[in-house]
């Protein structure tokens, strides 16, 4: 297979990488850029644990060829907190509401929740559950996550953000 030089901007930093066609974006992020927050859980698009944000859209990095992400802006869980370590309101809300247990689904869930709130600042419970339906969790039973998203929505509105 032919190696291709691609550019990926991840969490604000641009990387020049030689990739082969069948390299998956998930594994480039985890193994080559050492951004291990994004997880492999099922590999076939059923669970949402590998969710990243690419040019503003939520994508499953386990189903993406790294080469097709050439030139795009990618945000992973590691890119949410500010450079000074200031947590994103969604991250804080997950902490406040104990909306995680083992933590394995948490990065994907936080990425998805953030995308939801960027699009809909005041989602109803039904909207939250519908939007997050592609993210599986086996520990929490989901309720605490719904409450966290509602909490984050509230604090983001309060900040006028």
């Amino acid at each position, binding site marked *: 297979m032919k190696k291709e030089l691609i550019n990926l901007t991840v969490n604000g930093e641009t990387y020049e990488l030689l990739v082969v066609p069948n390299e998956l974006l998930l594994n480039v992020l985890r193994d080559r850029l050492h951004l291990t927050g994004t*997880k492999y859980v*099922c590999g*076939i698009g059923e669970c949402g644990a590998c969710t990243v944000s690419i040019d503003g859209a939520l994508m499953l990095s386990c189903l993406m060829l790294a080469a097709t992400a050439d030139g795009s802006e990618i945000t992973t869980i590691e890119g949410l907190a500010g450079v000074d370590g200031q*947590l994103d309101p969604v991250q804080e809300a997950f902490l406040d509401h104990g909306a995680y247990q*083992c933590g394995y689904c948490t990065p994907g869930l936080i990425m998805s929740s953030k995308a939801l709130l960027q699009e809909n600042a005041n989602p109803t419970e039904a909207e939250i559950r519908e939007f997050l339906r592609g993210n*599986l969790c086996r520990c929490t039973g*989901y*309720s605490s996550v719904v409450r966290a998203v509602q909490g984050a929505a509230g604090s983001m509105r309060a900040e006028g953000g």
Partner: protein
Amino acid sequence: MTEKFHTVGRSAWRKDGLAKVTGAEKYTSDISLPRMWHARVLRSPHPHARVLSIDTSAAEAMGAVCLTFDDVPKVRYNERLVSVPDKLYKDRYVLPDKLRHIGEAFAAVAAPTEELAEKARRAIRVEYELLPPVIEPLAAMQPGSAQLYDKIFFGAEEIQVENNIACPRVIEVGDVDAGFAEADFILEQEFRTGGVYHAQLETKGVIVEPEADGGITVWPTTQSIHNTRILLGEIFDIPLHKINIKKVTIGGTFGSSIQTNSIIPICVALALKARRPIKLLQTREEDWHTHSRYPSIIRLKIGVKKDGTLTAGHMQTIADIGAHNTQAFPFLGVLAGFWVSLYKMPNLKYEGTAVYTNKVPVCAMRGFGAPQSHFAVEAMMDHIAEKLEIDPLELRLKNYIGLGDTFWGQGPTVRSVVKSDGVKELLERGADLIGWRDRPKPGTQSGRFVRGIGMARGFHTSGTGAPRPGEVIDYSSAFIKINEDGSVDVASSLMDHGGGSLDALAKIAAETLGVPYDKVGLSPVDTRTTAYDVCTHATRGVYVGGGAVHKVALQVREKLLKLAAQLLGAEPAALSIKPDEELGQGVIYAESVPGLSITVGEVASYARVNSMYTIQAADSLRQVNGPPAYVAHFVEIEVDTETGVIRPIRAVAGSDAGTVINPDMAVGQLEGGLIQGLGFAFYEDSRYDPDTGQPLSRGLITDGKIPTFGELPNVDNMVSFFAHTYEPTGPFGAKGIGEAAINPVAAAFANAVYNALGVRFTELPITPEMVLAALARKKVTTDEPSASEELLTPAG
């Protein structure tokens, strides 16, 4: 109850919270070592076969290191060391001598990259001799059926396996025949529950690094670093001081890593052969093929008097254990224990048979037999209540095993006396919250959408402690020291599944030592620097693990106060410690003597500056009780009688966990358990083609669905509450919750379905297909119960 505590009972950000919400938390798959190679495992495509030849030459020509049966130690073992050695059924080798289930690992390769390892794996040539598979347990037990095993070990003794029976267990108390003779009514029913895949999000994995001195360092997915260590030492004949198992955060387990999973010794063997670090991760489809919950067939017969007193019980169960015996013997005991510990039954007989089949080996899954037996018993209790026209709650309150009663918990050798009991409060409050008195009469509703309310109660033991040690090893250890600035290190080898048990331990330490919670650290640990903890299972994390921390913290407190007393010129007994958030220190003071105080940090610093010692203690604890963590669930469901789809509307979960140390995490357990129970009740079943042994889902979660955000009730319709109890034998009065949170859930949902439809399902999961079929049958035969429903014989 927790108002008098400064830390216990308060919710706070978890200690692993920042790492988990920023993606910084490291799990096994996130770790990389220099020179590390990647491994892939070759797994059987056949349910039952012999390997006639295996040719790894092409793989080796690619530069891969290969492992086959010839390369591994010929030590026979059981992966799970929770039971005492002479009660272990040992049928495993590191790589098997024969293939006994689709997915059984029988060879492995390691190569510089996963891609190369994958190529090498596919280049291995195998010749199989196919053997007839036995898929159905009842067929497997027939004389003449293909046998999975010839001889295995029980303890140190070689035994013959007959008719694929892995182990039987018979327990009798009193005289069942006399008991049934006394009964006014006898009910008998058969229940079935499906195979359920744990679906923990992190697929199991391991990294092994061989050390220069012949030792190994291991980063595994495990619920017990010490048992993993002991087993590896036994298999590979490496002394334990040269084996270091690192505690790594796990992405959920629900029981799937109580045992040292097969990839761990395989990876050790590969690492020793390759003489470099090896990483072995299971893909999801592989992980699916390595373990599942015990599916069950339970035949239950109960005798009851007109006034609702139970007189006798007879339970027969077939446990289909799949291809390996991980803990069938304790499972049968636990299933019995959970049955007989729900309600008083003076005469009982339990007959359990564990059967080998050519399917994925089962292992414990949250509840370990309790969800199965709760389902049967709680459906039966509802049924009895209806027949006798007694309120279901009254029937339960009349018969349940509670305060002052002896109960078995996890089996006949694990008995203790109940010392805290919140059952009445759980039932009364739960009934109130759901509107129990206003529920409809079963099967009286018409229209397309019908609702029903159901309840079930139950418990799980907090650990497996008993006055005398029995078949189950159960103790924990802890090491605590005061740092020179007044902060505290707590080193516990207890694993945290993710539910927050370790945070409870930190809170117990903070409470005991009087220091601020955020000044207590949970140390990263491994087996070389910690003392033994058997395993995080059996809902023992807080009660036993926390108990050990409490014991050791008291020892540290004593030493601390002794030195503080010297420095203050006071008696240790006159001193108290309480946290001062502003100072960020624990403050040691004498009540009613203002100004006489010193901080914990000052004391520790004094000890250092004056070259004295570190204020520290290490010890172990065995609990002599396994108190029931009671629980009750009240749920409302709605059935679309045209599509058979059932959805949960409201759910009330009440827990008696004694003192609730982590309130928000305890709620998390209840909510998580509810949804897992929902999955068990309505969605999850791992079925196999009865002829080929092929799993119908093929191990893909595309067809192994678990509940999503769409399946739960609205959050406002979910209520969790806690009984006001105090367990005198638990740290600050605490008991457990983890498995209690799931045990009666499926039963509650099934009882709710009965309330809605007047149809009692005795098989899980209850699918829309089954609902429509049952409703169609009901239309045809309105008066006669169908043959599969029940056998009701008035006695006498």
